[in-house]
């Protein structure tokens, strides 16, 4: 049995402690240890963006971060996006624009869009497309997603 390390982080505003092996990625910790299954495993090598989370204010692929590296850090996942009684404006805009089909890529796109709008509240369409280049969708294509992010920016 491999040794486990005790890690203390903040996730979606809550102080969270977990035990993990050094070889577990942040994505595995979120999904397998903490049952936060919003972030998805797509490619598991940094290409698809389905596992995107915000770590200390920066958008990252959680599949490329080790759980043991996250001690003392602040993690934001898609589970923290909606308020208890209402969706986040980005989520509303994705619904309004039907900017999803199978939904696997959606949590990653939502977190990328959140990081973009945190940085740049009024992006142009090229800026949205450039920022979302690290997120792949194999169902709908990208136009509805881009429109949703622009609508969300306008609504916020």
């Amino acid at each position, binding site marked *: 049995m491999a040794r486990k390390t005790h890690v203390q982080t903040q996730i979606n505003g809550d102080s969270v402690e977990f035990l993990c092996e050094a070889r577990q990625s942040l994505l595995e910790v979120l999904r397998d240890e903490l049952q936060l299954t919003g972030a998805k495993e797509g490619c598991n090598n940094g290409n698809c963006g389905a596992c995107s989370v915000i770590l200390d204010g*920066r*958008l990252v692929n959680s599949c490329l971060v080790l759980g043991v590296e996250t001690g003392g850090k602040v993690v934001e996942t898609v589970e923290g996006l909606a308020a208890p009684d209402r969706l986040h404006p980005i989520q509303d805009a994705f619904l309004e624009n039907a900017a999803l089909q199978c939904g696997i890529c959606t949590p990653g796109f939502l977190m990328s869009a959140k990081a973009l709008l945190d940085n740049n509240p009024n992006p142009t369409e090229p800026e949205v497309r450039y920022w979302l280049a690290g997120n792949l969708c194999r169902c709908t294509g990208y136009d509805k997603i881009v429109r949703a992010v622009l609508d969300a920016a306008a609504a916020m």
Partner: protein
Amino acid sequence: MRSFEFFEPTTLAEASRLFAQEHAQLLAGGTDLVIGMKALTETPQSVISLQKIAGLAGITTDADGGVSIGVMTRVRDVELSEEIRNGYTALAEGAAEIGSIQIRNLATLGGNIAHASPAADTVAALLALDAQVDIASADGERSVPIHALFTGPGQTILTAGEIMTRFRLPSPASGSHYIKHKIREVMDLAFIGVAAAVDMDNGTITGARIGLAAVAPTPIRATEAEELLAGKSLTDAILAEAGEAAAAACSPISDLRCSAEHRREMVDVLTRRTVREAVARAHA
């Protein structure tokens, strides 16, 4: 991923001691190492994170008018730094070519260089900008010019326990530019990368440096092309000579991405384009 021991030393001396052991790997941004460990192409017994060592991240101005960039500086911060964008434009352009924003928020400048890929996106610019690499170990410190760092694909002159700490760039050249030859706008590897930096005085190129990536077993300088440009003013004829000399300096391979002939031809074309743009920026 295989199991390994994870260390987060807080001093370089401790990191160097751990890294001198067998089967040890340094962890910076993880965008190469973690992928390699998942693919089992990397199976270290110990992984030593550099993130808790103070002073390894950040961009600072040096007394001589140059800048120092710590190895743990994220490439996204290199890309966005006003100081780098203005004074060392080719490097900001190279950093912006890496992966996605998610990747660039993790990947570090030190990792991009330590991985020693001939196709690294920041390396051509660091060659053209004449970066000096500071290296620390338990035995002390040394410093080498970046063109002397690489010995082969994935190979450097670093010996057991040696850790790169920072890249020191001299005061800015008059103008610089990097072009990545690629298919996709983003999320692509370089077919080739060409960077040029020029010093200008009254319309004359007083000095030029050209870095080439993905056209030889290591990143290289096109020194013959540089010498052809020095002391000249910019003309189509001198650009053509420099382009040819740069193409002659490389020893590209054919692979899935493109042929050696295409790479050599494009080194000629892109050397002319990068030098022309670097000169134009010097005048701007």
